Structure formats: C-alpha cells, structure tokens
C-alpha cells in the first residue's frame, strides 16, 4: 500500500499535464514568436468542438478525432495569420492584445451561435473512464493517457526546435528578421508554419481537455488565465520551462486543495507570484 501522498502527487502531475497541454501551443506563439495571442484558447475551443462534433454526429472514435482537432485549428489559424496577425508582428504589445481579445469575443459569440450555449458532453467509451488499481491507489486511465501525450509532445517539440533546420530558422527569424531574410530564409512561411503549429497544439489541447473541464462558449476566456500563468512562470521561449511550470503549478494546486482546502483556491496564484518574484523571466526564460 502506498501512502496517500502518492495519489496527491499523481493527481497533481496529471492536472499539471492538462494545463501543459492547454498552454504548450501558447509557449510556441507567445514564447517563440513573441506574439501576444490571447485568442489561443479560441483555437483550443475550436479543437474541442471539432472532437465533440465528430464523435456525436459522425460516430468517430475519440483518438481518430485528435489529429482532426489539430489540423482544423492549424488550418483556420493560418487564415487568421495571413489576414490579421502578420500585420501586427512588429506592432506594440497593446495592438496585439486588442486584436486578439477582439477575436476571443467574436469566437465566443460565434460558438454560441453555431453550437448553442449549453455544455457539450464528450461521449467517451467506458474503458477511458475506468481506473487501474496499483498498490492500493487508483489511477484514472484518461489521466495516464494525458500524461503520456504531454510527455511525447514535449520531447517532439524540444527536439524540433533545438535540433532541426526548421527550429533554427524559427529562432533566427524571431531574433533578427532582417538578417534572416538576408540569409534567404522565407520568414513569412516560417512564421505561418510556426503559428499553425502553435494553434494546432492549442486545438489538440482543447480536444484533450474537454473530458476534464467541459466545453461551452466561455471556454475561450475561462482557461486563458491558466495558460498565461503557465507560459509566464515557465519562461518565454522555453517548451521545457512550460512543462516544468505546469507540473509544479498542478501539483501545488492539488496538494493545496487536499491538505489546506481553505486557501487551496489561491495557492496557484501564490506560487506564481513567488516564482515570478524569484525569477522575473520565468523558470527557464531566455529573454
């Protein structure tokens, strides 16, 4: 028999991975491209609705809908990027905030118009809702899968950004656009692809989060705070920073709620404040 602390650690880590999946796309757009994209959770919501619609109306299996959520969010985001975002890459932070918060409000209204204002349940098969018992502790299957996917995404992204030619181009384009153009890098295309990657990841995160946090049109706003906390605590421009920050915040949140429920609600913000005072650039921040 394991003591209950392991259960708390597992739940906290799983919750952290949920936060990570929701925010990893943002650490690509905000962190790497340096664009303040408050509409991040709108793309996540799009992924969520994609998955729910495919499962309830077309009877697709859950795992088959995940790539779709990624692709649809990515494709739609490229449209937005070409039309709006790219005009503001070098604009001030405030302009970027105004543009993207506008997109958030529009997306909330559009989602309410198309899908209605009610909660959309995700009809998952029973085996995904069951849990495994190991040494006297129960581990939920869905949470285990979430953790596995989060680890896989982290590994893939870190490898792509640090070790591939594409990653090098992105970093070059962000750091010095003129120089990058001079070297023959197609900056427009690089940015479009990076943005699509970030939004696709948002879509995937949204699709995976629905089972835990539910889905209605306010999704685009409700979880934005958590996403921004994770990215800023992790440090701009660092995927592994977001990963560590999400795990840390998740564990402290669950442990706080379990051991001292009276302050449990504030703990996640308290941890954020302490970490940011200690390291204003975030845990792994480069800029």
């Amino acid at each position, binding site marked *: 028999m394991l003591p*209950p602390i392991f*259960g*708390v650690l597992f*739940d906290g880590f799983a*919750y952290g991975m*949920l936060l990570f999946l929701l925010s990893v796309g943002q650490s690509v757009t905000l962190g790497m491209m340096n664009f303040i994209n408050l509409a991040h959770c709108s793309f996540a919501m799009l992924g969520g609705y994609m998955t729910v619609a495919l499962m309830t109306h077309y009877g697709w299996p859950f795992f088959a809908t995940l790539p779709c959520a990624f692709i649809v969010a990515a494709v739609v985001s490229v449209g937005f990027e070409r039309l709006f975002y790219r005009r503001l890459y070098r604009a001030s932070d405030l302009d970027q905030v105004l543009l993207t918060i506008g997109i958030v409000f529009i997306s*909330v*209204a559009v989602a*309410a118009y198309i899908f*209605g*204002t*009610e*909660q959309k*349940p*995700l*009809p*998952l098969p*029973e085996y995904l*809702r069951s*849990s495994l018992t190991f040494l006297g502790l*129960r581990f*939920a299957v869905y*949470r285990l899968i979430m953790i596995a996917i989060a680890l896989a995404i982290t590994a893939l992204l870190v490898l792509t950004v640090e070790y591939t030619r594409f990653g090098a181009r992105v970093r070059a384009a962000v750091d010095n656009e003129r120089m990058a153009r001079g070297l023959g890098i197609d900056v427009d295309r690089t940015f479009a692809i990076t943005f699509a990657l970030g939004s696709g990841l948002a879509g995937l995160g949204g699709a995976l989060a629905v*089972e*835990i*946090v*539910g*889905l*209605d*049109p*306010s999704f685009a706003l*409700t*979880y934005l705070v958590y996403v921004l906390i994770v990215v800023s605590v992790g440090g701009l421009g660092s995927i592994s920073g977001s990963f560590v920050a999400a795990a840390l915040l998740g564990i402290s*949140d*669950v*442990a*706080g*709620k*379990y051991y001292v*429920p*009276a302050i*449990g*609600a504030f703990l996640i913000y308290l941890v954020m404040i302490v970490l940011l005072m200690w390291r204003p650039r975030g845990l792994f921040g480069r800029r």
Partner: protein
Amino acid sequence: MKRLLLAGVGLFAASLLPAASHAQGTVKIGLILPYSGQFADTATQIDDGIKLYLKQHGNKLGGMNVEIVRKDTGGINPPVAKRLAEELVTRDNVDILAGFALTPNALAAAEVSAQAKKFMVVMNAATAIITTKSPYMARTSFTVPQVNETLATWAEKNGDKSAYTMVTDYGPGIDAETAFQKAFSAAGGSVVGSVRMAVQNPDFSAYVQRAKDLNPQSIFVMIPGGSQPGAFGKAMAERGIDPRKTEVLGQAEIADEHALASMGDVAEGIITSGNYDYNLDNPMNKEFVKDYNADYNRNPDFFSVGGYDGTHLIDIALTKDGGKTDGDSLIAAAKGASWDSPRGPMSIDPETRDVIETVYIRKVEKVNDKLVNVTIASFPNVKDPFKAAMQK
C-alpha cells in the same frame, strides 16, 4: 458641470413622474439577464421559457400587448445590473423589471425596484433574502433553503446518519451548506466535515479524495451548473465513490440533463432535490416539454420554468388588477396568486412574496438505457424555511 447637474436633476424628476407616456394597452417589461459570458446558457433557457409563454398566449399578458426590452449583464456584475435597471426605468419607461438569473445582480436591481416602485419578478436567483430587499418583488423559481432543508430532512429520515458537505465558496453554496447542515443536525444526523471549494475549479480530485478519506455515509454537494458537475462526477468515478453505496446528495444542477450526459453511468444513484425536471409525470408538463422542444430543439430545465411561470405571474397580476401597471397594484395582485405550472401547483406567499411549491426528491436511474431523474418523494406546498425562521 452646471448643465450636467441640471440634467441629473431633470432625470431624477422625470423618474418621479408617473409613466404617463404609454400607448394604451401596452405593458413594457425590462428583462435583465446574463445573455453573454459564463451564464449565457441560464439566460437562454429563461428567455426561451418567457418566449414560449408569450407565444402560447398570443403575445398578450392580461389582455395587453407586450413589449420587451432585453439587457445583458454579461455575468455576475451588480453595478451593471443596477445601472441597467435604472436605465430601463428612467429611459425606457418599463413597467416591470424581470429576469435575474444571479443573486448579486438581483440584489443590486432590488434597490431600483424599491425606490422606483416597480414590480420586479425574479425568475431564477435563489438566495433566500433577495425578496426582502424590495416590497415590489415576487419570485417564481425556488430558494436554496427550500430545496436543501427538505433534502437534508428527507435524507436523515431515510437512514443517512453522517454527512460530509462540499460546496462552492460563493453565495448560493454557503447558503446551501448552512441550510443542509442545520436541517440535517436538527433531524438528528451528524455532519462529519465540510469543505468550501474554489469557484474556478476545473479539477475536483483533491476535494473528492478528502471526502473519501472520511468515509461518510453521504456526501452533500452544491456546485454551480455548467461544466463543474461533469468534472465532479468524473473525479468521483476515478476515486471509486459509487453513489449507489455512498449516498451523493445535491441540488438539481448536479444531475441536470447535460451533467448526466457528461458524467455517464457513474451518475447512477445520485439523489437531488429540486422544483422541476423535464421528466415530471403530469399532462401539463408533457405538453410543455413537447412545445419547448418544437421551438428550441432541447428540453426545458428549472431555469425555463422559472421564466415561463414568471411570465405567467405577470399575466395573472395584470388580469387581476385590470391592467394597472404601477408597482403597488401589481404586487397586491401577485400576492396569493396561485396557478398550475408544468412543475405542479404553485403560488406566491402573500406574506413573503416568495414561491410556495412542491419540492421533489429524485434519484438518477437508468430507464430505457438513458439516465434520468426519477421522483422518489415529493413534498407539496413547501415555503421558504429561511423566511419562516426570520418571522419567529
């Protein structure tokens, strides 16, 4: 500055004048609801209930034409609700204020109703004290103590001797906690522990684990409807809490149609207390559910009947007072009004202007492979116990 002041005085004076500018035979209703934001779905359901009643009655209330002005609070926003109520009264010249999904907004608008002497119909907000804040106010939903004290007493009588309470740390949650604990202890049960949970709470695993550690006979839950009931159900399933063994008790929200769909089979056995469910077995409700589905393509819920019956009350009051639209005549006519609703017989308490109705105890069961709330006990003519205690 001087001109501003003058304008303000003018506005104030205008608001004191009786609203004489109305076209003959038209009643103007100002609806204040959270049409956008987190509680948009609540507003949708209340609004659809109102629309259905008007449609069924040829868009006339008490023989008068109806004009509705809709205002959006965007969520919990008392200053905005108050400003909107003021605008409705002074600028739009409405006769009646209605809607009010959320307690803080209803409390803020109550001041306007009391000062401007406007009839105000609360169609959802369920904190007990709301109706005491304006003598021109009546309510057609329910009160938190009304359903939860009934539930607590019933649970104790049916063999629950120990309970753990879990509520969201906001007005209605704390109201429900107080009501349940009070009635449960009074009946002889013991409350073994309690927790107040964060309002923004996507994950319940830690709270549910705490409840499980104490191993109580029953768990009382009060959380806002929407995304949380589903998340709560899943946390329960993951921890291995089975509502068929550990009694899970709560207010209607935790087992509404969408919550059940998102929880799945783990919901089986949850016991809730409420004033309405679309499965209620009476001919009027069957008709209501059919018409509602025909127009809005979904089932009505307790929000919908709150709006539907609120409109019905306005209809009754205008009929009874012969079309007078001032606050005094309307509230006098509304006091003691009684009618048949899809939820069963209901009336307005002449003393407190609050709703008197049947409280149903329901259990989630699988009927024809679908999870539904099945009524297992019903208590007719329940008054709000909070105000009954206040009067003693």
